[in-house]
């Protein structure tokens, strides 16, 4: 009976892994297949990566994406950390309301948020462009940063800072010698999160991108509409490897120093 249950559980786990990773594996294999029509058996070749290297549209979009995600990570992490500190350390009017208001942006469909941003930006004259995308991405990634940093802050509380103060540390010394090193892993994790939110973002970028400027997800979308080329497989493979690397970093940092 126990053996049966165990094999059922193992089978289930195998199925989940297959459904999650088979499409990705197929895509990565096809990125190295010479045939544009996915003919089997696979003829290993890096032709699509070479093609990609000459595809300025796709590379330009990738650069836009990376730069946007980096700037977004810096701004969202700075603002979000300050907000998380305020939530964790201070009492102020409307705190609970603000905390509740953090979560709807996570649950409201991006399509709706994107539409509303487009309307607002058009109406206020902000218009479209990378600056508008950045605004949208920062707004979108802030709640994630606040939640991640907030969780870290909660785990060590205010007494470490109080202890440092009783030992003669000025507020500035308290921040650099205690708060920052202890919060550090949480902040790094939040920054990676913010980077990923921006890098993955399609809907808002699509709505706010003016003609001629696009990000990688938007470019992939238009490329697929025009006719699929295996270059997409190649760039996707690169993205998958990069994001898995980021995720491993995230896992490492969110645990690092988490023990007390």
């Amino acid at each position, binding site marked *: 009976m126990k053996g049966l249950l165990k094999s059922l559980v193992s089978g289930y786990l195998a199925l989940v892994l297959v459904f999650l990773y088979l499409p990705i594996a197929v895509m990565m294999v096809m990125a190295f297949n010479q045939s544009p029509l996915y003919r089997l058996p696979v003829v290993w070749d890096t032709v699509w990566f070479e093609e990609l290297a000459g595809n300025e549209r796709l590379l330009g979009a990738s650069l836009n994406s990376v730069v946007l995600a980096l700037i977004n990570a810096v701004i969202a992490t700075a603002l979000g950390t300050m907000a998380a500190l305020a939530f964790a350390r201070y009492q102020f009017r409307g705190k609970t309301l603000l905390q509740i208001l953090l979560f709807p942006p996570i649950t409201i469909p991006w399509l709706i948020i994107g539409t509303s941003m487009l309307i607002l930006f058009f109406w206020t004259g902000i218009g479209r462009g990378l600056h508008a995308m950045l605004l949208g991405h920062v707004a979108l990634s802030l709640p994630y940063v606040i939640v991640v940093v907030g969780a870290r802050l909660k785990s060590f509380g205010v007494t470490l800072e*109080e202890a*440092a*103060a009783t*030992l003669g540390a000025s*507020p500035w*010394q308290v921040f650099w010698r*205690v708060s920052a090193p202890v919060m550090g892993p949480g902040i790094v994790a939040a920054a990676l999160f913010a980077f990923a939110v921006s890098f993955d973002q399609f809907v808002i970028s699509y709505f706010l991108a003016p003609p001629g400027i696009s990000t990688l997800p938007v470019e992939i979308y238009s490329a697929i509409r025009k006719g699929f080329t295996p270059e997409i497989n190649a760039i996707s493979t690169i993205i998958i490897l990069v994001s898995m690397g980021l995720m491993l970093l995230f896992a490492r940092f969110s645990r690092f120093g988490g023990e007390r």
Partner: protein
Amino acid sequence: MSIVEVDKVSKHYGTVAALENVSLSFADGEFFGLLGPSGSGKTTLLRSIAGFVEPDQGDIRIDGAPVRDTPVHRRDIGMVFQNYALFPHLSVFDNVAFGLSVRGAPRREIAAQVAAMLDLVRLGGLQERRPRELSGGQQQRVALARALITRPRVLLLDEPLGALDKRLRQEMQIELKQIQREVGITTVFVTHDQEEALTLSDRIAIFNEGRVVQVGQPNEVYERPATAFAAAFLGDANFFTGRAGSPNGTGSLGAGAPRRVLLADGDAILTTSPLPADGEPVRLAVRPEKFEIYRSGAGPAAGDAMNRLSGRVLQAIYSGSSITYKVDVRGQEVTVFEQNRSAQPFPPGEAVDLVWAPRHSVPVEP
């Protein structure tokens, strides 16, 4: 070292009074316990001395100088927190060195002082460990060493032994007291553990609802509780209510002789403590271990020297070295704590007499 004065300090949170006109004075080198139930204001007072709480009214002075405008990091205090608050990202050495390091002390001096301090708390050899690699008792000692290394004017302890198990707590109590004596630092500590307060303190203040109920040496406070709350919070107490009576009619009484408190049904209890005027209501407290328990009619006779009340055993709780009786005395349940000297405890239902000396009947404010 230093003298700390708390002068008419009040602190309100909304309509709740955390501290209400509290005045206390801690002598140089004194080990002073703040004892009370949670929410009684003892922690608020400790945090006010540290500088985390700003009193609404009143002053706190260290060596005569008010500290109201001195921020925490300039108050020159040491504090041990309930959960130690060791820095998780620093080694034991760096934790202990922190106070010297933020003051910019030279490295060689830091190393020497940390080593000496770790010796004092018997933690030599653990310098490179992280706090999470230490046992609870070791963490406690690191916290103490860290607080003492700057030679602060006052040491504040917030439930310092609360997170340890009972045996370790008793060991650490002795050690803590030794270290405090050795360093000779004025120490204020907060606890809700009455035994800990009695063991460690030179003096105790009992808190209730933001006020100081009583201040005194442990034995004073225990033997002569001022209020019913102090009597019941610090140890157990039985209460008898009656009215102050005239000196008993045997004619043998001079000044300082016991006076009587008349109970409702004609019985009387003698006390050597001052009483209000005749006829005024009086509440007497008697500690459970002050009674002697005898089979009905046995033992010393009642008279000027002894109180004697009859009762019936309701329950006898045997715990090896001692026996706790619940005795029905005139419809009131009285707790009696008896060293286990007799071979056979009194069974429930047995008629017994409780006998005790008049000096153990202590009038308390209700």
